[in-house]
């Protein structure tokens, strides 16, 4: 079997000292800041997160981990952030963390040097940002764009509508994908450029999250808001992989805690005079969920380790996203079922995880999407 495991690739996995430390720090931080009572309290909150926690995260320097030192960051690879996002996922934290990180990486990738100097120090120190990529076509292919931008005397004028823009209410700037000269392009849109009423909150399945539709019609930004168009396609591909890696981390974290939550119930709930966790139909299924989680976690840390490597990184990330989608979805689905009648109530936390799993799978590709990409890469 070893040969099969090695098919095409060495199954590399590793952990840097920084990551090892971050696991502990992030574990304590997220557990303290996001107990389930707090998560539930924020469900009805307009912003959906605690600004004080966001401020602390900025103080801890986590937003600058992937930003080079010259822009006020630490200059490490994106993989270093995986332990943090994994722990955030365990505790269902909802912060503009992933969107801000990915926006900064996109600017690092193909922003002009002027844009990098203008925005990166702010993003590394607590200014939130988001990406406006999805459209009505519901396509995971980020190059399937119908929104447009064109140069006019007033500046760059945008048109069209974007959907699923996470944490838009908090973002100070947006990376927006458009067609420009009939080719994909990315534009940096400051919040101030949006017309009043351009943002409308969407009703999404994950109650812990906030998402908005963005009306770009009439938006006019400075002519130099365009990012380097020659690198746009490459940057969109990068955004997909970077987001997939961090979403996988969030899901692996979620899978761990929803399994833990269900185990607690199976160890205390009695039916027919026995703890229900002693019944094999439940016990064995929990083992399958747990094994799926372990597989996904191994793939996650392999993807974190290989992320910056051409080719191997893409294979590892797609495998990690596919495995995380399935492991989290299965664990959370069974979590509802195994809580019985209580599982059908809003009070049972299992639904929060299941909704989160659907949300995370919907963004940047489900398992089948990534497997099809992998088939083209590997077969």
């Amino acid at each position, binding site marked *: 079997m070893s040969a099969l495991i090695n098919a095409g690739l060495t199954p590399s996995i590793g952990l840097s000292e920084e990551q090892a430390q971050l696991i502990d720090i992030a574990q304590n931080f997220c557990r303290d800041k996001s107990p389930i009572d707090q998560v539930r309290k924020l469900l009805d909150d307009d912003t959906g997160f605690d600004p004080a926690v966001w401020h602390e995260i900025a103080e801890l320097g986590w937003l600058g981990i992937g930003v080079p030192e010259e822009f006020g960051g630490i200059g490490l690879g994106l993989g270093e952030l995986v332990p943090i996002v994994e722990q955030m996922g365990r505790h269902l934290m909802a912060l503009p963390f992933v969107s801000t990180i990915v926006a900064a990486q996109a600017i690092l990738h193909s922003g002009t040097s002027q844009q990098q100097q203008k925005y990166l120090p702010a993003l590394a120190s607590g200014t939130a940002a988001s990406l406006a990529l999805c459209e009505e076509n519901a396509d995971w292919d980020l190059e399937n764009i119908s929104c447009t931008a064109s140069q006019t005397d007033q500046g760059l004028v945008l048109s069209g509508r974007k959907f699923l823009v996470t944490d838009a209410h908090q973002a100070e700037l947006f990376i927006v994908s458009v067609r420009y000269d009939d080719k994909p392009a990315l534009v940096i849109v400051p919040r101030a450029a949006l017309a009043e009423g351009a943002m409308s909150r969407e009703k999404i399945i994950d109650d812990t999250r906030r998402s908005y539709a963005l009306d770009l019609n009439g938006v006019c930004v400075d002519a130099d808001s365009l990012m380097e168009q020659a690198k746009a396609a490459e940057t969109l591909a990068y955004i997909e992989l970077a987001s997939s890696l961090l979403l996988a981390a969030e899901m692996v974290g979620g899978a761990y805690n929803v399994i833990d939550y269900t185990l607690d119930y199976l160890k205390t709930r009695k039916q027919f005079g026995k703890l229900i966790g002693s019944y094999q139909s439940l*016990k064995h299924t929990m083992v399958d969920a747990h094994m799926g989680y372990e597989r996904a976690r*191994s793939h996650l840390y392999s993807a974190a380790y290989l992320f910056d490597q051409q080719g191997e990184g893409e294979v590892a990330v797609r495998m990690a996203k596919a495995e995380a989608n399935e492991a989290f979805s299965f664990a959370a689905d069974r979590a509802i079922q195994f809580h019985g009648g209580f599982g059908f109530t809003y009070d049972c936390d299992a639904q929060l995880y299941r909704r989160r799993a659907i949300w995370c799978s919907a963004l940047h590709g489900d398992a089948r999407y990534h497997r099809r990409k992998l088939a083209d890469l590997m077969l």
Partner: protein
Amino acid sequence: MTAVDQKQLQEFKQQAEAWFAENTPREVDFMLPLTFMEVGTDQQFEFLRAWQNKVYEAGYLGAHWPKEFGGGGLDRAFQDVATKAMAAERTPIMLNAIGLNWTGPLLLDRGSEEEKKKYIKGILSAEEIWCQGFSEPDHGSDLGNAQTRAVREGDEYVINGSKIWTTQGNYADYMILLARTNPQAESKYKGLSFFLSPMKGQGIETVPIRKLTGEYGFTQTFFDNARIPASCLMGQEGEGWLIAMQTLEYERGARSGQAGGHVMMSADPADILELARHAQINGKPAIEDPAIREELVALMTEARALGLNSRRDKIQPLAQDRPMSLALGSKLASTDFYQRLNAFAIAMQGTRAAYYVGDPQAHDNGVWQRGYLNSFSATIGGGTSQIQRNIIGEHVLGLPKG
């Protein structure tokens, strides 16, 4: 752990690769067993015994076991590269698997000096073949209920009862035997003792079992007033369950110390990809079918996770949330995977899925069909997958016993 001389290791690796490239038998005119559980003919047995002996004499088996008992006295890393070279070259398997993987490490970990001196070298050289006597006809997964009796009479134990699924039982010189010395013990577990029992002697008879493939490889072993020296008792009376559980940990991959060398040949990705390229389904190469492609990728992803899991298990901060999880899960994960892999390989063959070993129409001479049927030996033996789920559920997830 002491630092390994990387230069020395590199040289050893090159030597091993060159040796296996040169010495691996290529043109064998009979079917070689894919696993140590499929040794069904004398011809296969003698061939594999000679091959293991040759590998041992060349220094590529037990390279990390202590020199004083017949090992190579090197660091574990040396045997690992030799084992890898063996698997990469797809050499015939190491025959004496029970000795190499279970009895040997058990003796090295808890055997007496005398036992180590007496048995280790013969295990490595394949001069003394070992088998395992745990399961009984009426007590497969429920090992603790073993009923084979061992009664002390002077300097001997008298054994009565029967064991089943004795791999290579008809060839074995010794058996690791779990037998009941005290039927009145306060618990069924405490009544068990562990023996290093000879297999050749009066009152011990083996009867071959015909497997689902139609081949042989296992026996049922009958003890009828068989007398074995009292010195065959390992440890103390009543420690049988404890020692048997430790043995199973080697078998399940939860403990290391195995002599190395591969004891199972398994599907190579190149093989299954090759099959997908030339097997036809709906009039087209299977590899062009979108559903087949997706499934292939899913299996390759899963295979990769098996390797990643064992590597992650060595990275402490990534393996501490649920201690023992990855080690105890590896048997279940890999045997279950291998079974589905073979089943999938059959499913991409169109009507040719119906053929079996020996028919010219069979893909790869039926290796997938035979491999699938044989894969149940691993999902049933050594504790069924269902028992594995109980173990993981109870010991890793902390769920209550049923």
